[in-house]
Structure formats: structure tokens, C-alpha cells
């Protein structure tokens, strides 16, 4: 097959400027809310900040993982929509900004950062070689260096290919993906342990990294699906996508809904069965003071509704259904993070306007960076050798 001769009528279009406006408006509303909330309740805002940081982290690093996965698996169907993931991964450099306010409140967030508490606590003392502020910051730096470095390398090669049509760039990215995926496995585990699990340093769960990963995959697939369906409806894909592509995305969403439930249940069942106080207190805390309703809601929102919504074959191809389910799953991932983070510090269920600032800012920034990348890059990777097969993909 001669790739160079393959051409199609792809006209680059820019996103409407209203979207940029929306992004700015949301960002400003979010920022204003954040400023007020930091003045009102510094501690609580930090937790909200942490959740949004992890949420955007899910979208960013998950997108990068999807890109790597497509290269290393030789996937063809997702090539036309790969750019959506690449655009979302652009959030990674900005994530550091989201982490900055957290560094000023490490003592408020992380129990183990107080040296006098650690000194009087045998368990924390034995964990202190890992859980200390210096090593924590070093890990943060290493993780983000790796993520941003690979984001840069992947997208540079991918965008260069649009111009040069050089097939060896795909080979380069496959090699990069081979290096990145093991690193991803380690870094996302460390990130989940550092930023969420260590909120309760006495508790541990060996499956926690996988748990966060399953949520990450759901969030990024939902974000990608929603955006792709929307862009396709507005004609940005020049009607080149077929329902086969949407079915694949719906199937992945469905699969990872099940995967999340499987992992979440595995974690719960072992703790429930063994019934050891040093593990069960974490679950008990989420079953008291109103949190039990959040726990039940999590099962319904994160598993039962998407499961039923995406079970049948036609529903995985239905654009409208996919859009609703994607937004729903994004919300579910936020609820999941809320359930993971908030009960560690708040004994009874807490939700108010303070928790709204950061998500609004997060959505605003996501829109802004997406529009920024979209208007400067081809939405379809026109130089990719797999593109023709990807567009002709059939179930």
C-alpha cells in the first residue's frame, strides 16, 4: 500500500470562539470561587484542590497511556481519533500548577508530614523512610518529569509526521511506548499511593494503584468519547468516523466499567473477609456519618448505571447515549475521588460551594488547553501510515 498517495478531503476547521470564551469564563468563575474558599476554609479547599488535581491527572496521564497503548498494540481503529487523547494530555504540564497550592499545605493534608506525630507512632516511624517530605517531593518531581517528557516526545513525533509523512516516526513512537508503559505502571501506582492512599498513612491496600488506574482509564475514555462524539456531530471529523469507531469506544467504556467494579470489589472483599482492624477502619469511616450514602451512591453511579446503560450492542453505537454516559462516567470518577479523599479528614458528609471552585476551574482549563491544541494541530493525524486502515475500520 502506498501511503503517500492516500489522500482525503480533510479541511481543518477551527473551534468556535464561543468555546474559548466559555473556557475563560469557567476558569475565572472557578478562580474567584477558589480565592474566596481559600480565605474561608483553607483546609477544606486543599482537599478540593487535591481531588481536582487527581481528576485532571487521570485525564492527562490516561490520555497519554491511551496514545502509548495504540502504538504498542498496533491498534488501527483509534488512529483517526488519537489526537483527541493527545490534546487532553496537554493538561500534564499545567497539572504542576494545580499541585503548587498543595505544597503550601502539606501539613494540613498529610498526617505523616508532622515529625512529632511520626515520632510517637511506631507504624508511621517504620513507614517514614518512604513517607517523608523530601522523598515525597522528589517522587513528585520524577513522576512529572517522566510524564511531561513522554508527552513531549509522543506528540512531537506524531505532529512531525503530519508534515514529513515519515513512517519511521511511528516506529520511534512504538519504541517510546515500550519504554513508557512499564514506567507508567510504576508512576501511576506511586502517584495513587502518594497523593490519595497516604492521606491515611496507617491504612494500606496493595491493589490501590490498580484501583486508581481503573478509574483513570474510565475517566479518560469518557472524556475522549464525549469529545469525539461531539466533534463528529459538529462535522470536525468530516464525517469520516463510522459507528464502528463509536462502538469500539462504547465497548471500552463498558469493559472498564466492569474492570473498575471488579477491582473495587476485590479490594473491598479482602478487607471485609479478613476483618482486621488496621484495614477495616478505612471502610468503616466510609460507612459512618452520612458517608454510607456516598458509598452506596458510588456503586450505583460508578457501576450499575453505566453497566445497564452500555450493556446492549445498539447503545454502544448510539451517539446520544454515548455522550450522556461519558459525562455520567466523568462525574462518577469525580465522585470516586471524593469518596477516596474527603472522608479521611471529614468525619461526616461534607459538600458545599467550596468544593465547586476547583472542578469549575478544572473544566475551564481543560476546555482552554483543548482549544489551544486543537487550533494549532490537525485533528486527524494525516501523516500516520495506519490512518487509511483506521478510517476503513469495520467491526
Amino acid at each position: 500500500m502506498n501511503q503517500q498517495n492516500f489522500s482525503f478531503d480533510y479541511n481543518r476547521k477551527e473551534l468556535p470562539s464561543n468555546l474559548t470564551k466559555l473556557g475563560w469564563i469557567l476558569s475565572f468563575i472557578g478562580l474567584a470561587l477558589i480565592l474566596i474558599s481559600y480565605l474561608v476554609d483553607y483546609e477544606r479547599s486543599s482537599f478540593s484542590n487535591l481531588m481536582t488535581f487527581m481528576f485532571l491527572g487521570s485525564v492527562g496521564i490516561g490520555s497519554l497511556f491511551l496514545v502509548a497503548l495504540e502504538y504498542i498494540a498496533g491498534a488501527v481503529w483509534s488512529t483517526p481519533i488519537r489526537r483527541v487523547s493527545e490534546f487532553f494530555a496537554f493538561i500534564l504540564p499545567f497539572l504542576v500548577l494545580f499541585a503548587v497550592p498543595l505544597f503550601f499545605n502539606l501539613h494540613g493534608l498529610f498526617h505523616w508530614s508532622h515529625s512529632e506525630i511520626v515520632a510517637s507512632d511506631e507504624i508511621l516511624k517504620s513507614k517514614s523512610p518512604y513517607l517523608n517530605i523530601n522523598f515525597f517531593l522528589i517522587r513528585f518531581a520524577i513522576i512529572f518529569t517522566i510524564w511531561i517528557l513522554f508527552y513531549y516526545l509522543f506528540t512531537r513525533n506524531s505532529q512531525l509526521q503530519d508534515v514529513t509523512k515519515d513512517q519511521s516516526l511511528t516506529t520511534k513512537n512504538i519504541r517510546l511506548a515500550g519504554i513508557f508503559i512499564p514506567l507508567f505502571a510504576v508512576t501511576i501506582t506511586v502517584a495513587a499511593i502518594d497523593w490519595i492512599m497516604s492521606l491515611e498513612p496507617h491504612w494500606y491496600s496493595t491493589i490501590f494503584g490498580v484501583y486508581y488506574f481503573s478509574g483513570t482509564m474510565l475517566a479518560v475514555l469518557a472524556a475522549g468519547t464525549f469529545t469525539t462524539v461531539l466533534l463528529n456531530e459538529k462535522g470536525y471529523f468530516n464525517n469520516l468516523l463510522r459507528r464502528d469507531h463509536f462502538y469500539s469506544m462504547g465497548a471500552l467504556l463498558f469493559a472498564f466499567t466492569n474492570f473498575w467494579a471488579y477491582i473495587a470489589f476485590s479490594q473491598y472483599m479482602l478487607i471485609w473477609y479478613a476483618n482486621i482492624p488496621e484495614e477495616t477502619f478505612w471502610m468503616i469511616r466510609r460507612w459512618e456519618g452520612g458517608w454510607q450514602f456516598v458509598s452506596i451512591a458510588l456503586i450505583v453511579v460508578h457501576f450499575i448505571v453505566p453497566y445497564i446503560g452500555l450493556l446492549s450492542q445498539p447503545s454502544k453505537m448510539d451517539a446520544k447515549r454515548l455522550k450522556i454516559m461519558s459525562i455520567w462516567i466523568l462525574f462518577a470518577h469525580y465522585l470516586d475521588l471524593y469518596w477516596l479523599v474527603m472522608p479521611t479528614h471529614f468525619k461526616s458528609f461534607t459538600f458545599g460551594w467550596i468544593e465547586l471552585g476547583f472542578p469549575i476551574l478544572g473544566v475551564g482549563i481543560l476546555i482552554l488547553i483543548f482549544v489551544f491544541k486543537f487550533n494549532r494541530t490537525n485533528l486527524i493525524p494525516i501523516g500516520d501510515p495506519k490512518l487509511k486502515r483506521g478510517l476503513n475500520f469495520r467491526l
Partner: protein
Amino acid sequence: MNNNLIYSVSALFDSPDAIINAAEETANAGYKNIDVHSSYPIHGMNSAMKLKPSKLGYITLVFGLSGAAFALLFMYWVNVFEYPLVIGGKPLFQLPAFIPVTFEVTVLSAAIFTVVGMLFVLFKFPNNSHPLHDTLYMKKVSSDHYGLTIQAIDPLFDEKRVKEFFKRLGAKEIFTINYDREEISPKNKIFDLKFISFLAATAVVVSGITYFTLNKLLYMSPFDWMMNQNRVNAQSKSEFFKDGIGMRPPVEGTVARGFQPYKFKGNPELAEKYLLNPTSPTEKNLLRGKKLYNVYCSPCHDNFGKGESRLKGQFPNPPTLHSDKVRNWSDGRIYHVIVEGQNVMPSYASQISVNDRWAIVNYIRVLQRAVNAKESDVK
């Protein structure tokens, strides 16, 4: 009987793109009873043929849900009613513990009935004869061609028009497939004598082989020359001896190796007088005596022979070995007590060898001397 009843007109194409195109054109032309044959699944064929979504998903759903319900109810019945058992202090109905089993049974039931439903409901198995079987068309389709078939039952079917239609689509070869005579014969082939006797013969052969394997073959030992030897096994009968006992008692008066008969049985006075200590209390001998005394004697007599061991009060107290009576006994008399026992004390003849008994006697003498030391020992 009409030997030329047409089943279908079938055409061969030589690339997957061509067959998809042809299937799409055929479906667009309004033909309903069409089928495509290829040796592997072709992506996009379902939509090209305008097939309705498969009904298989409903079978999977129904049987998956039934499996889940069955597993849950079954475990509920077993754990709550039939055999209530508290495990790990948990309630009788413990949902988290039941979920893995429910999940597995759901998957198992859904998978099995999907396959069964697909084969026997949707594919209408067992369909042991089909007009397309054993045709050149099918042979080519299953190697390197792609086939498209329009059945004669289609309302738009007309042999000539269909053939021309296929030609226009670019078919490489076109066949008219007739029913075999047997297939349209009203006689039900399953009661054919040849077929029945073949079935019967198969049944006889298979059951015979099964019987032979399970009852004979498995019990044949591959070699047995170690198991079956020309000798008398322990505790088995013997034909050689009159009484039939294989294990023979030793001849009267046989003395075992290392065994010495004791001459003063039941006669302590003679032992006192005539039994002499053949050993001398060397250091080695005394250390040996100390070791054995601590093992065999000290549990009752205590480490120093005073009879104040931890067993004191639980048994009739052993007398002290430091009484005048024992101190004045000869070595032989003490030896006699070790061999025969005294009052509650049992015989130690079977535990302690002759030389060791004398070593113990020597050690007892040391203990006695230590408790009642003489003036000269201190110097």
C-alpha cells in the same frame, strides 16, 4: 421425483472487498434470502448484507441473569436454611462472599447457553445434510474464494436474472446448486437400516472398549517380578511348615546377641553376696553413669538421690539412696534392684545395658559419698 429442484444460485468472488461490494449490491437489489460464505469472518459484512442485529444477546442476557439468580438463591438456601454455619463471625447471608461465586456462575451460564443457543437455536444444529455440502462451490469457499448465495425461495428469484446479476457484479464462477435426491426425499434418513446398524455397531464397539479398559486393562500390571518373589513375606502363611506359620519362633534356649542371662533372678540375697562389680569407677565410666542416672533414675530419685524430685507427692515417694541400708548394700545388690525393680520401681533391664547398669551403680556410690563425705575427703 424432481431431481433438478434448485436450492440456490451461488457465485464465487476472489477478494474480500469484492464480496463486501457484491453483498451490499445484492442486498440493495432487494434480495432477502441471501448468504455469504467465507473461510473467516469479514469485518463489515453484517452491515453490507443488511442483517438485523443478532438475537444472541438476548439469550446471553436471559441465561446470565438466570445463572446469577440461581447461584444467589442456591447459596442463600444452603447457608441460611439447609446447613446454617457461622463462618468467621459473619452473618449467615453474607453477600460479599457470595458475589464471586455468583459472578462465576453468571459467566459460566451465559457462556454455555450462548454457545448452545447459537449452535442449536440459531444455526439449527444438528443439520446433517445441506444442499451446499460437498459442492465445488463450498470447496472453493473453504480454501481461497468468497461465496455469495441467493436462495431459490427468495421472492425475487429467477435463475437467469440472478446469473446475469452475478456476472455484472464481477463473479468469477457461477453455480446452480440443486437439492440432492436424498434431501428432498420424504423418507426420514435417520431410520435408514444402514445408518441404524452403523450406530449400533459403534455403540457395541465403544462400550466393549470402555468395559475392557476400565475392568481389565487398568488392572494389568506392567511388570510384577519384584512384587511376586519366591519367598515367605512377613506375617503371611507358609505351606512349608506343618503349623502353617511363616514367621518361625527361635529355637529354645537361643540367646540374642549382646544379651547376658541374669543368674540371680528373684534372689537378692545371693546377688548381695556373689554378684561383683566388674567395672572400675574411671572418670569416663562415672560420666557415663551420671548421664544415664540423670536420664533414667533422676525423674523419681532426683538428681542427688534424695528422692525429692518434682514427682514427689504424686507417687509413693522413692526412698533416699543415702540411707544406711542402701549405703551398706553391696554393688551387686543395687545392680539387682536396677535389673528386677523393687516395690513400685519397674525393671530397667530392657532399657539399660549391663555395663551401663554398673556405671549407674558407680555413680550412685559417688552421690552417696558426696552427701556423707568423710573427714579425709576434705583434705
